[in-house]
């Protein structure tokens, strides 16, 4: 991390910063007994650092000046002891402050994760997961950076600075005041540069954003560029954005490069002032050489603490903005809880009824209006229709990710709101479009819904899902790690594992989204067979994409504009010559009658 000066601060207003800081300090509560110990160690450490020049200055006047070598050596020995004590204090300080901070950060991370688990699905449908993710990662990491290691250092330097100022004022009031004039000046300069830098860095953020966007697009579309001979044009466009980014950065650095020299200059100004005025006092006999020397040494010690404090200040600002966002997340209302008298869902038969269901993600816009449907145990219901259009909503309601605003969803005659969510969902299996797997072994992923499953059960599920052979072909078989640093699986293989995952919990109701892309033919066949097995003897709701699915379904629901436009078997719907017929029959017609040329 560059330490050449103030980087962009956040946009939190000062009073908001204060309240965020206060809330963050609440995290100190469990450690309130350790805090005074830490603070005293910090004070001790800073004091030992600050005291050195005082005694050196004193020794110049009273010992060296008097030719007292023995006294000098005695003093130095004492100082050495003092420094060793100081080291002990600093070590203790690092340990305690560091330990407190790490535990607080750990707690913060935990709170965020716990919160995520308790938020309703509606929250995730609102915020873009990627945006949330990057914010959380960034924010937690800025907090980590600002408050992790540097707190001990910052506090130590702060106390040192205070100690130095006090020592100076004690030795000689006039000289002390003169020297300390520069401190507020330094602080003011820091603020000034921070403001200038902020504007410049905003520009660099824009240019790098544009550059990254162009990069992503062009790197991902090289084939098009080559096929359409656009390579040179892309390169030229890139050069222009590249140059803009370079120039913006150089301009921003002009500010930061000037920051430290400015502080340094103020520091030297103070030193020169001390030399001049102190020299004057010494010459006129109002101060001794030792005093002036001590002051010179002290003033030189200003620079480093101010540098570190200014660094910390800007880091802290970003951290506070990040904390603010984290706290916003923590304040989100938790999800619909089970009713106080909620019972456990008894083993399901799989009879699903929607009775006059009305639902909207926002109260004003209903996505489902007066929906009625009845699926008998073991039936397969295919959902078709233009994208979105309420198909996934029906599934959201069965799983009780959302509650209906009118009417009711009943399973085996029991309204889903009367049972616990856990007991409801344990008996419903899902295979969704994205086939998300989690970090862990293949076995752990298959046993996702049933962590206590035996290996035999896991294998059986894998067999049914046509994935056992594939898994055993992997170098570590079922113990193969999946996830970021694990084995990469193709889309088709992921789907097979997802199917095994659903098979294992042996659900009475199954929810399946058929949308898949780019699976190779062989795996496609395996997937089809596995799904066919999965659908047997279970009530299933399938968002259908394959013709074969709809033709085999017991009921087809055509969902359009939030309403069930048509309901019936495939044959009935084709005969109706309505919406469904329009969607599918033309396709069939084209295939069925090869037109002569």
């Amino acid at each position: 991390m560059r330490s050449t000066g103030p980087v962009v601060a956040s946009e939190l207003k000062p009073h908001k910063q204060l309240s965020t800081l206060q809330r963050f300090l609440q995290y100190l509560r469990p450690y309130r007994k350790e805090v005074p110990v830490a603070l005293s160690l910090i004070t001790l450490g800073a004091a030992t650092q600050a005291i050195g020049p005082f005694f050196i200055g004193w020794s110049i006047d009273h010992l060296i000046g008097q030719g007292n070598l023995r006294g000098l050596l005695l003093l130095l020995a004492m100082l050495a002891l003092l420094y060793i004590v100081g080291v002990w204090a600093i070590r203790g300080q690092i340990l305690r402050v560091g330990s407190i901070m790490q535990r607080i950060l750990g707690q913060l991370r935990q709170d965020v994760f716990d919160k995520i688990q308790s938020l309703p699905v509606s929250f995730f449908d609102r915020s873009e997961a990627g945006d949330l993710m990057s914010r959380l990662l960034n924010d937690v990491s800025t907090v980590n950076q600002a408050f992790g290691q540097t707190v001990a250092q910052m506090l130590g330097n702060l106390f040192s600075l205070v100690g130095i100022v006090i020592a100076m004022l004690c030795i000689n009031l006039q000289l002390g005041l003169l020297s300390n004039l520069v401190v507020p000046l330094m602080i003011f300069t820091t603020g000034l540069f921070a403001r200038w830098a902020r504007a410049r860095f905003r520009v660099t953020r824009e240019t790098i954003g544009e550059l990254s966007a162009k990069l992503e697009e062009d790197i991902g579309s090289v084939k098009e560029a080559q096929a359409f001979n656009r390579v040179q044009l892309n390169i030229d466009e890139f050069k222009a954005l590249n140059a803009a980014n370079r120039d913006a950065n150089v301009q921003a650095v002009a500010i930061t490069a000037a920051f430290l020299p400015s502080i340094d200059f103020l520091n030297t100004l103070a030193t020169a002032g001390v030399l001049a005025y102190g020299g004057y006092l010494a010459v006129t006999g109002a101060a001794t050489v030792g005093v002036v020397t001590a002051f010179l040494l002290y003033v030189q010690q200003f620079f480093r603490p101010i540098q570190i404090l200014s660094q910390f200040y800007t880091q802290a600002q970003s951290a506070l903005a990040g904390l603010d966002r984290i706290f916003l997340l923590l304040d989100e209302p938790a999800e619909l809880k089970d009713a106080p008298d909620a019972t456990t869902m008894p083993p399901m038969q799989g009879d699903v009824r929607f009775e006059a269901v009305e639902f909207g993600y926002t109260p004003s816009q209903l996505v489902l209006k007066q929906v009625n449907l009845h699926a008998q145990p073991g039936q397969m219901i295919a959902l078709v229709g233009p994208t979105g259009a309420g198909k996934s909503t029906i599934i959201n309601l069965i799983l009780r990710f959302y509650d209906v605003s009118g009417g009711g969803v009943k399973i085996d005659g029991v309204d889903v709101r009367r049972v616990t969510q856990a007991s409801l969902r344990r008996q419903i299996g899902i295979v969704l479009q994205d086939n998300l797997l989690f970090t862990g072994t293949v076995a752990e992923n298959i046993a996702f819904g049933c962590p206590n499953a035996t290996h035999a059960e896991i294998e059986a599920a894998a067999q049914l899902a046509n994935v056992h052979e594939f898994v055993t072909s992997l170098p570590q078989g079922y113990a193969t790690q999946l996830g970021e640093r694990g084995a990469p699986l193709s889309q088709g293989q992921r789907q097979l594992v997802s199917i095994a995952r659903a098979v294992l919990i042996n659900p009475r109701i199954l929810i399946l989204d058929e949308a898949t892309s780019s699976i190779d033919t062989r795996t496609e066949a395996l997937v089809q067979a596995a799904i066919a097995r999965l659908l047997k003897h279970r009530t299933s709701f399938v968002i259908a994409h394959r013709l074969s699915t709809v033709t085999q379904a017991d009921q087809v629901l055509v969902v359009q504009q939030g309403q069930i436009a048509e309901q019936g078997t495939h044959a009935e719907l084709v005969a109706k010559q309505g919406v469904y017929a329009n969607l599918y029959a033309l396709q069939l017609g084209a295939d069925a009658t090869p037109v002569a040329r």
Partner: protein
Amino acid sequence: MVQPIDLQEPSPMRSLQRVLKSLNAYRWLALGALLSSLLLTAAYAVTPQLFRWGIDQGIADKNLRVVLISAAWMVAAAIARGLFNFGQSFWAEAASQGVAYDLRNRIFSKIQTLSFSYHDQAQTSQLLTRVTSDIEQIRTFLSTSLMQVISAIVTLVSIAVILLIMDWQLALITLTVVPMAGWLLARFLSRNGDLFRQVQEQLGDLNAVLQENLLGIRVVKAFVREQAETERYTQMNQALVRTNMKTILAIRNTFPFIFLLSNLVTLVVVGYGGAAVIDGRFSIGELVAFNSYLLLILQPILLIGFAAPAIAQAAASAERVYEVVDAAIEIRDRPQAVPFQTCGGRITFENVSFRYPGSTIYALKDVSFETQPNELIAILGMTGSGKSTIMNLLPRFYDATQGAVRIDGRDVRDFTLASLRSRIGIVFQETTLFSGTLRENIAYAKPEASLDDVIDAAKAAQMHEFITALPNGYETLVGERGVGLSGGQKQRIAIARTLLTDYSILILDDSTSAVDAKTAAQIQDALDRLMHQKTCTSFVIAQRISTVQNADRIFLMDKGRLVAQGTHDELMRHSPLYGVILESQVKQKAPV
């Protein structure tokens, strides 16, 4: 990545050397920074001498004039220091930004010109990292670490010289702090490098779990896994806290001692120097100066110490960047390549076999055919039959492993790539839309095309009505912030895009698969007309027999071989495979 790394050469360091060489283009900026750095060190070194003069000749001698003059010179030195410090930082940054600019241009151009075979195996995210964060690492190295190391070394050397001149005995005592602090630092870095890496890894793993839970919240809830996931996270979180504590302990065992060292050496200096002052060998001013130099020595040591891992990181990044920059371009123009101009319509495949690089299986096996002028050829086959692969060889996205592809008798490798590809219009299976307006998307290959031309292309692709119905018409923005288009609409944009080029040969790869039957028929009509007007030969690649019925000839592909060619009727009569496919596609309908 694709290219194997030669483990015998110390490549990271070599790559870093190359980076330094590329600094040559900005040598004046670099020299400016270096010079500023040297002058800066001089300005730093001068100030303690001014102390000494001010104290000895000024205060001790009660000479106020000297005191004031030395103070004035100190201010002058500070101004000089400020200017040189600024110059060093600014010019170093400017030079590093220039190098980064050049490097980014180079790697981007390379990526855009590398062949399909490279991109099949490359991952976009890996390439992106190289252009963005790897180059940024290199740049930071140049502007910060390199500069810091050079100025640190210069500072140390010059201060050592000054101290030795002032009093060599005291100097030797003072300079002992250098190797001792250096040793402590080296020990810290070597013991704990792994520890810090472990922290990063654990943090990465923790964040991965967080991400999974965010993206897969439905799956977690549906399988009632909230508790289990939380337990898993808690364990990993606690482990991270423990690892962080280890780093704190490591820091605790090193840095306080480094500072103690410098403090103790100060005491020794004061003791020894004090004794010398008492003996009259030394002045107080010199003593103060010595102390000031001591304060100046510590920082360079720390800087050099922390530069070491930064240098290692930059070297690793440089290696990754040059890996791409050095990648070989497989498909390029032959030395005597001629422009491809007119097309007669005779396209020949002579015993063409093809294997994707890195694969052992042949995707095409001994394929031979010849087209007649103005023919519309349909290539039919299931997934994996090689039907798309054939058409990759015509524009030379890949070169045949064996055999030859000819146009009117000339091998396609004799033509320049630019001219060849500009005359072959392709509509890919997957449509890529670019951020920009609909017009820009259609005019992708010809940004300077007139609106009329764009409209003509859109009309032929049956998109004109839809576009004009939008509020902003052709200026409507596409992409993340713009209008969302359905799969069928995207395909039609792609078709319009291709129609706007100067194609003589047209290749349509499964391009109406997402379009509903009625619109597909309309598009087919328009394309039929265009194909007969403008092309010397056209190819349609498809899976559905309904799409290929109107073709002059149908090529049937199966497992990389051309198993049959002929009209629809001929194939129905003579090809068993064709019959099987026809039947299976008919079967997917309900009994009426």
